[in-house]
């Protein structure tokens, strides 16, 4: 899966979770950019991302992830 493909899927997940068809995420997107993305929604978001890519983040990854770019890197690292 290319990095672009990963972002296509990520966009779908973000749109579902935040119920907003306008969202487009980039490498630099953080919780500050999406109004409803608070610490509680973050859990739900990660679960949805895990499901979409059939992967599981470990605790170290969850703690260190700073923006959507880093999330994509971890995903690519896991799906190879």
């Amino acid at each position: 899966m290319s990095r672009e493909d990963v972002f296509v899927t990520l966009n779908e997940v973000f749109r579902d979770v935040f119920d907003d068809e306008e969202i487009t995420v980039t490498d630099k997107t953080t919780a500050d950019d999406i109004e409803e993305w608070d610490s509680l929604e973050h859990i739900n978001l990660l679960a949805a991302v895990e499901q979409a890519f059939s992967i599981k983040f470990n605790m170290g990854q969850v703690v260190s992830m700073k923006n959507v770019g880093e999330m994509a890197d971890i995903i690519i690292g896991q799906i190879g």
Partner: protein
Amino acid sequence: MMRELTYPFDGEMILKKSKKLKRTLLEGRTDFLEKRIAVLGGSTTHDIIRILELFLLEQGIRPVFYESEYAQYWQDAMFDNPLLSDFAPELIFIHTSNRNIAKYPTSGDTNEQVDALFAEQYTHFQVMWDKLADTYHCPVIQNNFEYPFYRLLGNQEAVYVQGRIAFLNRLNEAFYQYAREHENFYIHDINYLSASYGLDRWSDPLYWHMYKYACCMQAIPAFAHNLANIIKSIFGKNKKALALDLDNTLWGGIVGDDGPENLEIGQETPMGQVYAEFQGYLKAQKDIGVMLTVNSKNEEENALAGLNHPEGVLKPDDFILIKANWEPKSQNIAQIAQELAILPDSLVFVDDNPAEREIVETQIPGAAVPAIGTPEQYIRVLDHSGFFEVTKLSEDDRKRNEMYKANVERKKQQAQFGDYQEYLRSLEMKGTIAPFAPLYIARIAQLTNKSNQFNLTTRRFTQGEIEAFAADGRYITRYGKLADKFGDNGVVSVVIGRRGGMEDIAAYRQGGQAVPEKVAQTAQDVLHIELWLMSCRVLKRDMEYAMMDSIVEACQACRIGTIMGYYYPTAKNAMVKDFYGAMGFEKTEETDTGVTIWRYVIPADYEPKNTVIVMQKESL
């Protein structure tokens, strides 16, 4: 019925699309039952509430939530809490888990030390439940404990009293004992649920350490579904009857083509065993009050031949109604509902054929139509769906099948009588009508929550509220029981009347003033009927006349001369729109929304309206 929320569901999809699902649910209907639910958590509850809301909306309950601050369940319950008391919860859910056990035994503890620790941990919960019951008089749902995700003593963890599993088992048993002894207290069995889900996945420590969730995120839909089942059952939203297909649902094969002797049912083949086990499961459902009916495309003769198969567990006699014909199944469902005098959305349709399910699903909104899968999955799907979630195992439930069957017998007899009064007399009906008594409080509360059709005001009350009415001198309360030669129907009618103007009089007295003659007369003279309901299983039996007689008698005894009746229209109670008119009341007001107000001045020479039911006194 929303497929996305019907078991077996895709939990991860529900978590992801919850916002959209909520929107769709809210657009789907307007007749929600609003309920204030307090969630007191020992761990994070945010997503539990988010998903619980969906499953409740699906059941027609629109919840308003109070959520305790993180892990403040005990403080919220035990100490003065204006926020919670202003909220006035109608149900309290306590979400605790094994993470909330303050102290476990250690391997070096003596038996006495373990006993002391057990007493301490149990008391922590018991005082809280007592306090909640005292303060809020509403149903309380309490999680039991799931097993820990590791076992220090390995396989002996449940054997040695110092083991955590042994300790949790002991606490759980004490929780169950409390539930047995307290009417308004219910266990939410997360011990079973976590086992069924898979304990290792359920208790993934990541979710505790990262977010302080007691179970993993992905388990929350299963959790919320299970919890919603208890809540909807408490609020009277259980399903009532199963409508069962026959061929390839209750047995393998097509009875009309293969002949009854070639059906797969019984111990001879693996598939036959599966169907026999399923029939046994259904028969046990019947014994806890679920009504069984058949809805099958078959010649009736063939259907009966199949049901009389010697290896079958279910016999024709186990069913209240058998619809075996070539009509569309949706039409049969409507017919079954009508003949049982229940609403079509109280039915669960069980059929192996997705096309038949589709027809019923689209034609009968609200009826449950589970995708039951393959024969070896039937039991699990029906069971985990929780359509008939048990919260009260009452004598009435156990006898329900007989009662409804007797009803069908009565209808048959009715056809043989030319004169309806003559028919009613032939039933040899015996009634008991009396003020609310402790023995019937649970049944009365249950009726207020599940009667929709013959219900003038559709006001829902908890057991606590019913008890309060019974004890309050300003209220005249009546329950009515009805039996006949076919069987005992139990409590079938409830009336609550509020004596008018007592507050006005009390205000004058409190102010030290004499009560003006006019206020004294007009205020005291009125009874406002706040609730009048009757179970549809006794429609057209003159029970409403007997209730009226009893109310009038009560009024006469305390010199009340006028009765005011109120009708609040709902989607379901059109049948009693003109009830008061038929009872001789005169309409005094009608609003744009269809609310009507009625007045009845009790004549000096009031003649009892009931002439067919013999009234009896009951010694309690």
